[in-house]
């Protein structure tokens, strides 16, 4: 008898069908992986189970009993806990308060029982002992924590519910390897205790490392469930993409790096700033320079510094041989610099506005436009969007009508209307699906061939190894190793990343 069973669950937001037919069966004592491309409806399905989204139709059985999950509170009462992809933390509250937020321990009927609060927090923090990082403590306010630490708090909060069913919607996207390893240990432990766990990730290796069964969801429909033991990554991908054309096989041999002749388009000398120091590197025209290493080692900070978002403390930058010190993104863009952030919700998408307005802001600036003539802009926007195979109905639809991956494509497309000299990619594929990734990297390579200098930071090793001509490995805010040519192996990358800084 499955612990939890969903059948025919659906949800539409106006015209957007987020989930057409969600089916899922989870047993006690298993880690059930849910996989599907961006916008396929995974989070929607999870939220329905957790009560925070109201389904349009479908049935939920818990221990074979049909149940109505009328809200998050009801879900907890039914024994369902959840880690939300976008987190559910109160920024100004402490870690301890956040862990217990759903049911703050009480004293005398109205007071918060501070002791109980602290001891409960200590219990869950201890699970991650050693991997929580600097500044993490029960009474730190969440606001002061880094992204990975916040994700840990959200994990602890989910665990603290101590529910038989636990849903984790992309809990590892900001975690480093050590943190992921620890988390998986905890999951195994919970599994052993008979809990039912749903786990979502876009990282194939994680899926195979922890999953027992995998359910694939495509375009809002459940397409099948397999035992992990019975399937390989290629099989999963086949299920995900369906009958559509096969993905191009990953480049078996690293691309050749023969840019020695081309001049350097971006030069960085002795650059230091918040989160990094002593940066020295050059990017040649047509080169894809990779940034590697564990996350949060200064890669993003360097890119943002070059882009003028957080101007560096010292050092020099040259662009096309000329000194370049952007004090704002505005200035950087005017000088031919482009920057794509992986955090589209924060740095990219202008929510609620038409797709067209989301593609054009860079063009406005580069062309010093004053008027926004829709017809002229349309002609500029369409080719850029098509180059990435962006799926959308019309340019006047709000960007939020698109799936996350397609939103990210729109955000990337804005940099393609006027060709930049330098393209800074700051983990650009965070949370986008495999085919979108393939499209993106094909395009990036094409841009490189056209003479653009590209810097690529990726938190996914495979992405880096497959696409970068040269890799700088970051550790503790410094570049500790440069990998070129055949040195670019996973082994070398890990070794450089994990050695003590």
């Amino acid at each position: 008898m499955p612990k939890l069973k969903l059948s025919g669950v659906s949800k539409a937001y106006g015209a957007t069908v987020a989930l057409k037919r969600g089916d899922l069966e989870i047993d006690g004592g298993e880690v059930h992986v849910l996989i599907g491309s961006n916008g396929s409806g995974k989070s929607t399905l999870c939220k329905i189970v957790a009560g925070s989204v109201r389904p349009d139709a479908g049935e939920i059985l818990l221990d074979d009993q049909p149940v109505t999950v009328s809200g998050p509170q009801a879900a907890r009462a039914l024994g369902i806990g959840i880690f939300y992809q976008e987190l559910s933390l109160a920024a100004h509250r402490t870690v301890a308060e956040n862990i217990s937020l759903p049911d703050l321990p009480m004293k005398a009927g109205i007071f918060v029982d501070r002791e109980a609060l602290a001891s409960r927090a200590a219990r869950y923090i201890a699970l991650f002992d050693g991997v929580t990082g600097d500044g993490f403590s029960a009474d730190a306010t969440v606001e002061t924590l880094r992204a990975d630490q916040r994700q840990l708090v959200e994990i602890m909060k989910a665990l603290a519910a101590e529910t038989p069913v636990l849903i984790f919607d992309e809990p590892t996207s900001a975690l480093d390897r050590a943190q992921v390893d620890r988390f998986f240990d905890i999951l195994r432990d919970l599994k052993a205790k008979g809990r039912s766990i749903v786990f979502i990730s876009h990282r194939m290796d994680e899926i195979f490392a922890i999953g027992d069964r995998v359910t694939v969801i495509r375009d809002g429909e459940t397409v099948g469930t397999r035992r992990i033991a019975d399937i390989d990554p290629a099989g999963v991908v086949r299920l995900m993409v369906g009958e559509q054309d096969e993905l191009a096989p990953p480049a078996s041999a690293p691309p050749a790096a023969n840019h020695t002749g081309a001049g350097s388009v971006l030069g960085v000398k002795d650059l230091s700033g918040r989160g990094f120091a002593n940066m020295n590197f050059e990017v040649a025209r047509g080169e894809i320079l990779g940034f590697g290493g564990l996350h949060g080692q200064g890669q993003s900070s360097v890119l943002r510094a070059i882009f003028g978002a957080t101007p560096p403390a010292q050092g020099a930058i040259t662009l096309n041989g000329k000194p370049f010190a952007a004090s704002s993104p505005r200035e950087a863009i005017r000088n031919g610099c482009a920057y794509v952030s992986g955090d589209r919700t924060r740095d990219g998408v202008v929510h609620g506005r038409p797709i067209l307005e989301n593609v054009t802001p860079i063009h406005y600036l580069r062309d010093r436009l004053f008027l926004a003539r829709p017809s002229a802009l349309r002609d500029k926007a369409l080719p850029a969007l098509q180059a990435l195979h962006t799926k959308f109905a019309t340019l006047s639809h709000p960007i939020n009508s698109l799936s996350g991956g397609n939103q990210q494509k729109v955000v990337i497309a804005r940099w393609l209307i006027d060709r930049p000299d330098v393209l800074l990619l700051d983990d650009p594929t965070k949370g986008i699906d495999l085919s979108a990734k393939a499209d993106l990297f094909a395009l990036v390579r094409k841009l490189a061939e056209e003479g653009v200098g590209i810097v690529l930071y990726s938190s996914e090793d495979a992405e880096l190894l497959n696409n970068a001509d040269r890799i700088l490995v970051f550790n503790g805010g410094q570049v500790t190793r440069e990998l070129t040519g055949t040195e670019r192996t996973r082994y070398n990358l890990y070794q450089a990343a994990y050695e003590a800084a």
Partner: protein
Amino acid sequence: MASAVANPRPASSGIKRLFERFPFLPALMILAVLLALNGLYQPRSVSFIGMTGLVKTYLALIMLAIAQTYVVFAGDIDLSAGAIVSLVNVVIVVLMEQWGGSGLSVMAALGVGLAVGLACGIVNGIVVAALRLQAIVATFATSIFFTGLALYVLPVAGTPAPAAFWRTYGGRFFEIPFVLYAVVVLAMVIYVLARTRLATQLLAIGDDSQAAFQSGLPVTAIRIRGYALCGIFAALAAFCITGDTASGDPLVGGKMTLFSVAAVVLGGSALSGGFGTVVGSLIGALIIGLINSLVFFVGTPSEWQNLVQGLAILVALMAGVLVGRRARA
């Protein structure tokens, strides 16, 4: 494996930690400076009697600032707070008069007053949290409604409150002014309320209401409770006003609303919610009072008094926001 992440972060200094724990410190500093200046220009104003007078005059605003704080915690706002004060004021005055002005009738009227404040707060809460109207405009609309009610209860200012009532409020017990007892009780109530689950929940909602909801908090109910608390404190503000003015006036609280918001901000709370203290708002209200009297004591010509007060409050607001942010950054 040891944490592989080495993100340089500034060592958190003692001062910073202090400001984090006591976000009202900047306000307290402004208050101290203002007190000193008041004392400098008019020593009598900081005498025991002078200070008692200050408290008597501004206790109502203090109460209303406290009222406002609880909704601001959750990122809401109550532009009807002053109208609730007016309504409760006329209700209790009229009832006290109708019931004969005895001690018992005074207590009964106060009870009804609290109930009226509570009811108004709940109405606001329902309108804002349950019906999901935007707080600024919705409570502006309810303020018009409450004012209408107040005008219905007492169309013209003037009905006197029984002497038993205001003589108590303005009087002394064992040589100590009544309002000082009130302040002590208020301090205890604030201390107690700060430790309640409701306060934490309101602040969590102010941080991110969707997140709080998804965590399983009954967000709507909690916000309504916040407004209810606001209504109760607005009623207490009305008691103070009535004690100090000894009469009913259907428009008496109108001008206090925006000052209550200013006091909350002066006290270091974030209007966007999630961060702040009630003590800060109390200090904020006193700052407004001290600015007003200082402007007079330094001898500002009468036509300039309003302008100078306006400027001083603006500067204090800006200083409070800036200092608070510097200190916490």
